[in-house]
């Protein structure tokens, strides 16, 4: 197993801490006067997606995590698992609900997602940055009604809900930013 010293920590490095895989976001070197040096590191737990801050004695070593990001096509969901396929090897992988986090609500099928594999098993699924989905339910917008900031709730074909401008009607396609869950523009097939 590869080990890394704290001075080798840089953004994007994957390490194991207390049994969980983490992604290094930021590494700050702190050295008080002539004393002991520390590395204050911001890391993201790749299982829970939570960002924590850890302080290491400078020069301490940590085990690297065998974590890779692979683009895969979303195939279908079978009730308990979400299935993906590697576009080149056609190898199929299945992810559990925990790995889908909030991502599942944007997927209807065939989207290319980033599947983060840890020891070759899906750890985290990141949907495309934007997706195009059909509006299945929304109230007809009233012209001139600006009390709600010119937007109204809409339900999409995957079950997700977002706020859309008043002029968007049922049956239309819209483009949504999956990171912020916000309407971007009218969508095209």
């Amino acid at each position: 197993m590869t080990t890394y010293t704290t001075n080798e920590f840089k953004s994007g490095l994957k390490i194991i801490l207390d049994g969980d895989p983490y992604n290094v976001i930021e590494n700050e070197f702190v050295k008080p006067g002539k004393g002991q040096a520390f590395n204050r590191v911001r890391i993201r737990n790749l299982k829970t997606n939570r960002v924590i801050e850890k302080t290491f004695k400078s020069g301490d070593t940590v085990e690297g995590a065998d974590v890779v990001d692979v683009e895969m096509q979303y195939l279908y969901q079978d009730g308990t698992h979400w299935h993906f396929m590697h576009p080149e090897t056609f190898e199929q992988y299945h992810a559990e609900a925990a790995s889908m986090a909030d991502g599942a609500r944007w997927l209807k099928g065939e989207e290319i997602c980033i599947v983060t594999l840890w020891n070759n098993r899906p750890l985290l699924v990141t949907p495309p940055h934007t997706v195009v989905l059909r509006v299945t339910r929304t109230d007809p917008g009233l012209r001139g009604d600006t009390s709600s900031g010119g937007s109204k709730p809409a339900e999409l074909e995957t079950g997700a809900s977002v706020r859309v401008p008043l002029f968007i009607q049922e049956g239309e396609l819209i483009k949504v930013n999956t990171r912020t869950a916000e309407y971007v523009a009218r969508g095209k097939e």
Partner: protein
Amino acid sequence: MRAARSEGSCDWRPRAGRETLRLRAALKAEVRAFMDARGILEVDTPHLAPHAVPDPELSCFSVTGRRARYWLVPSPEYHLKRLLAADYGDVYSLGPVFRDDEVGFLHEPEFTLLEYYRVGWDARALAEEAAGLVAHLTGRPNRVRFIRYVDLFQEALGLDPLTVPAEQLWKAIEPEHRPVGIEPGDRAALCDFWLGTRFYPHLGERETVIVHDFPAEAAALARLDPADPRFAQRFEMVIGGIEIANGYHELADATEQALRFERDRAHRRRTGRTDVTIDPAFLAALRAGLPDCSGIAIGFDRVVLLAAGKEDLASTLAFPLAGYDLEACT
């Protein structure tokens, strides 16, 4: 000339803007004018030396020549003290020093140090003068607050860091933030943890803070307080959460100094650092007699950082190493 292998991704441009470099040059001129006006002599001390330093937490770069091995000096201290011992009076140097394994927002392996000495001065007088210089250079108010090292702990934790069991300093840290790789009984490392990661970042928002009376264990090259030898006459200057300078009422006792060096070497061996030989010329100079004096080392790049209102050291330098993309540029 050989073309870079990956010309596209290797960033050749200077990092600091022209304005910052102009400011940097102007501040150097200000430093020299300040020193000149006070009769402090600028000396060019060597950057390459036959001996490293035994500081327990410092690594020097070694340089291999064809016939000998040298070290890049981490501080001009030994050379400046040899000048003092030879009665050259107040001296200073402003130039590059080198420390391995120190890269970050506030650290560069090569950085510029302003170090100067005042014969016959005590640490407090020097701290006040240096604070005035730094305020002048950075354009910040010259308001100085002195606080004792132990009082930082007392104020924040209600603990005396030198007398409580070390475990209390460990338990005072929230469990999820306890440093990885530090033993709960390692008092020195825990004190450094509190100081460097918890106290300093919040000090000196609108003033210059002088943290003084460091514990004797962290005396380095400072003399101990004759009235209370549990403390060393050492101080650090903190502004805007950043350690700007480190000063001592200098230890002049050659025997005591040699003893501390051997203790430091033993510590280095215990912690797996490279063992180093002690510069005999430095100890000989102390034996010949160092005049009563105080000295201070000021991180010049950090002064530029404050003056320019920058966030990281690299942005004050034309060609910093921090953030240098080794892979793209080889």
